[in-house]
């Protein structure tokens, strides 16, 4: 075939941001490659299913793929990804925050280059916090204090408690913030040790269970995803919410559309994810996605060039401005345009920098499924739940139970 190779990039759906960058990078490559964009389904689970199916069949048409942060280990372990060379790794890592970079690593090798990140923040209504006499922006603000304050005001804490990945995000953040881990020695794959039954896991169970059973829980907690949580928080009963940074922009556009009062937006405060124990910094939930190169790609060098271009500081910063997805570069948050659009830019950067990833394991789907199965519904969570989750998870991973 003559002419430059056409790289196929499987993207997660967005508003055209990735396609724009692909075009810019192809133009700037001086004819080294052109890019064809293929859009994956909208939710991460279905994206994974499609990519796994294709890669298991050694599909050489996957040159570059956008991969949710939780799947790096599974794909890398299966041999589906082409690792970045040490030179590429050095260039890709430059200036990027360490926490998102870690989500792209498997066994000390970089398989996926961070292209966007995310971290949950604590959102609160300033007037209600003031009335309750608490300061959520205090570094030592804890879940217990938050629940007490909400109960005192007769208001709600919005969380994601539906039977889906978002609930796993919550549980994982509590366990990590308490100093524990859902899975110990995750690199051992099948032989990794579930370790929820610990001081941290017990405290996490206490927080989830007691919040869910209290009047501070949103009435739809068991089916609530991000948007339902936002609706409760913006409503009359909202006081606290744990959610991603997009909610501020969403609230602002709701005002523009006339569905929300400006006074509500003015009353929204934000702070770092609350602590589990007062003496231990929290681990804010980390999200985002990375760019990986298919192991069967015919043009790995060109694909690596595309990844380096698309994850450059300038491109990622612009993506944050265009698409509202937080950058993986510390420097992006000093950009005046970012600081104007994000009054909480420093908070987002610090939350990402100290964010806690979900377990990096080839069995992530089993681990998350086991945790969600045993911890749902939230009001059923009690002191036995962490040990039950451990036993179930171990059985599922070793093939002694069906998930």
């Amino acid at each position, binding site marked *: 075939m003559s002419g430059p190779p056409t790289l196929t990039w499987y993207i997660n759906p967005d508003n055209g941001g990735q396609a724009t960058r692909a075009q810019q990078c192809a133009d700037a490559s001086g004819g080294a490659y052109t890019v064809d964009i293929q859009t994956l389904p909208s939710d991460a689970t279905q994206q994974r299913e499609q990519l796994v199916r294709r890669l298991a069949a050694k599909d050489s048409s996957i040159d570059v793929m956008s991969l949710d942060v939780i799947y790096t280990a599974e794909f890398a372990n299966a041999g589906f990804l082409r690792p970045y060379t040490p030179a590429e790794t050095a260039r890709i890592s430059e200036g990027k925050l360490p926490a998102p970079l870690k989500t792209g690593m498997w066994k000390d090798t970089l398989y996926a280059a961070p292209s966007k990140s995310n971290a949950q923040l604590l959102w609160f209504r300033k007037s209600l916090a003031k009335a309750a006499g608490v300061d959520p922006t205090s570094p030592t603000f804890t879940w217990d204090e938050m629940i007490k304050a909400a109960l005192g005001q007769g208001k709600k804490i919005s969380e994601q408690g539906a039977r889906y990945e978002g609930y796993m995000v919550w549980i994982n953040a509590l366990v990590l913030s308490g100093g524990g881990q859902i899975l110990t020695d995750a690199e051992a794959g099948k032989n990794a040790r579930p370790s929820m039954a610990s001081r941290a896991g017990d405290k996490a169970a206490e927080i989830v269970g007691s919040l869910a059973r209290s009047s501070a829980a949103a009435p739809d907690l068991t089916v609530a995803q991000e948007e339902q949580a936002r609706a409760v928080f913006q409503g009359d009963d909202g006081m606290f919410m744990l959610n991603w940074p997009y909610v501020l922009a969403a609230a602002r556009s709701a005002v523009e559309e006339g569905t929300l009062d400006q006074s509500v937006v003015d009353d929204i405060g934000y702070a770092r994810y609350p602590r589990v124990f007062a003496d231990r910094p929290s681990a804010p939930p980390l999200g985002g996605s990375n760019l990986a190169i298919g192991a069967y790609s015919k043009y790995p060098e060109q694909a690596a060039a595309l990844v380096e271009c698309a994850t450059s500081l300038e491109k990622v910063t612009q993506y944050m401005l265009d698409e509202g997805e937080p950058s993986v570069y510390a420097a992006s948050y000093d950009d005046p345009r970012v600081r104007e659009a994000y009054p909480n830019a420093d908070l987002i950067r610090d939350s990402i920098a100290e964010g806690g990833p979900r377990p990096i394991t*080839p069995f992530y789907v089993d681990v998350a499924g086991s945790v969600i199965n045993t911890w749902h519904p939230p009001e059923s969570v009690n002191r036995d739940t962490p040990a039950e989750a451990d036993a179930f998870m171990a059985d599922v991973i070793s093939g002694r*139970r069906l998930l």
Partner: protein
Amino acid sequence: MTVTATRPDTPAPAAGKGSDRARGERRLGLYLAAPSFIVMVLVTAYPLGYAIVLSLFNYRLTDPAGRSFVGLNNYLVILTDPVWWNDFATTFAITVVTVAVELVLGFGFAFVMLRIVRGRGPVRTAILIPYGIITVVSAFIWRYAFAIDSGFVNQWLGLGDFNWFGDRWSAIFVICLSEIWKTTPFISLLLLAGLVQVPEEMQEAAKVDGATAWQRLWKITLPSMKAAIMVALLFRTLDAWRIFDNPFVMTGGANNTETISFLAYRQNVSLVNLGMGSAVSVLLFLTVVAIAWIFVKGFKTDLSQVRGD
């Protein structure tokens, strides 16, 4: 060779003539069937055999290094796991309810299609339309009809905020309803084929002898179309037993509405747990064989004897 030659009770000339023809027919039959048989082996037997082999391993597609032989352990795990029996119960409930209702409704439709004189074409078409709709599409139609936010059923029945898909049995009810709506035409079509074969003279004779309509139905119509009923029941039961689309679209398997096919899909495709998933698939296959066997034995009908002559 010597054995047949010395056997006195097989007169060579008489048997020879008949068996020559029979042998020729059989050979022709084999030749005619051979190409499709070979294709069947290639596309069916190979994957089936491979699935059986896979089912003896603990094997994740994404953990190739962790592959290990476990013998029949996967089957043991599945058959002692509440997930399997839960899915089995769901599948069983859906199969029994839908096939029973469809058989009765299908009979009604078949009679209508047979007896109708005016507007036969439009009526037959109207009855058959649901069967022409893709299952996934029909599943979405019914899902939206019963949905809490956009559905009209709750409004019609004055049920307010009743969440049909929030509870196991109400969700299964909707799944059954959709399934029945979609596949009753299929069963009625098969029954119509049987009804047409019921000899009209026999009906006339019975009428002359003073048999009531009810007696004619039970003594003449049903016995004469036993093979057709059997075929319809068997096909529909096997179809219903492998139900996947409706639960997948309507509930995603939530609230204990997962069926056996769904379990096989989840293990194989979502969890890429090929060992366990293949074992589920093989078990599903065995249940299908068992159902077919029960039907064939239960009806005491030899399908190969069902001929037009």
